[in-house]
């Protein structure tokens, strides 16, 4: 039977599960690692339940805690990624379990473009990849990114600009986007 702490904890954290899991995935790019990070966050947060109860915006607080956990454990995650790569199954992990060709919305060209985007994102630095994903995939505002990673808005803005430019460059180089003006 759940204790009162368990119930209070669930009430505070459950509304943020989806957003936190998405953040975990954007940080780690791998499902198993995203789940590990999410789990570790919950364990740590439960240990700080007394603080959590008094936090005005638990979602942001939990997201920051997750980001810090990830940064602290980055070497571990990077090492695991390397092992996965050695096993030859890193490619496409991000696409595993996604809708396949039987889904009408999933046409071949689009799939190829997503693959190219996946590869291009992996060529960005960790900072650039994260910022572009948070901003353009998750819809975080600049202030939210500032709050999460602890750098000024101006820095977030310039990193985002550089990240997008680099992404465009990579995708143009590999031919994903044509450079002609036939529009």
């Amino acid at each position, binding site marked *: 039977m759940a204790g009162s702490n368990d119930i209070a904890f*669930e009430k505070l954290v459950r509304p943020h599960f989806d957003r936190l899991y998405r953040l975990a995935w954007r940080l780690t790019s791998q499902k198993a690692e995203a789940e590990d990070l999410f789990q570790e966050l919950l364990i740590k947060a439960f240990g700080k339940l007394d603080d959590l109860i008094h936090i005005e915006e638990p979602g942001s607080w939990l997201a920051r805690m997750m980001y810090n956990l990830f940064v602290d454990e980055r070497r571990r995650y990077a090492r695991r990624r390397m092992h996965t790569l050695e096993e030859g199954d890193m490619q496409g992990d991000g696409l595993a379990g996604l809708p396949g060709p039987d889904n009408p919305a999933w046409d071949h060209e689009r799939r190829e473009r997503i693959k190219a985007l996946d590869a291009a994102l992996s060529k960005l630095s960790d900072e650039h990849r994260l910022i572009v994903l948070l901003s353009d995939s998750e819809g975080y505002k600049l202030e939210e990114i500032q709050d999460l990673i602890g750098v000024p808005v101006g820095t977030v803005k310039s990193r985002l600009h550089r990240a997008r430019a680099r992404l465009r460059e990579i*995708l143009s180089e590999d031919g994903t*986007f044509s450079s002609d003006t036939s529009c």
Partner: protein
Amino acid sequence: MKIKGLDIIMDKQDQEIRALLKDYPMPEASAGFFDQALVRATHEGSRRQRNRWLMTGFGSAVAAGLVLWMVGGFLLATPDLPVADPAIPGITMTLEEPRTINLVFASAEPLDAATLTVLLPEGIEMSGFPGQREVTWETSLRAGKNLLPLKLIATSPYGGEVLATLRHDDRGRTFRLRVDVG
């Protein structure tokens, strides 16, 4: 005009990239994952809180245990009772003569994948690891007292402090041993 044309291309590409990024997919969490994660968190969180108290107690006791083992190997301290911090224990070694010291780790429960790191001062070596000032390995602890013999060799007359740090999850405990070479 040429620059304007380039801007148009870049704008178009930016729009396409942003549209792709907006729909950049991610797999859903495994079925039932959130519920399981919640249960594990409350159980594990409670366990860690309990262990934090136990560690506070037995950490000091283990330090005391180290001294007792080294001075004669009798009278082990009770592991779950806090005791006052003892002064840093010390031993005197003879140059080039191996000496085994026994670290005693008392654990309230079995611990898998704990990491033990031994830091050695210059001139003190661990048998089997010549020239290494830092030796780390993974180990498992049984519930109760665990004995770890470390064979040390003094290769210079300077001595120093040996630090042994045991880590498990987010907990850690460091034991210090002063080594004099006579």
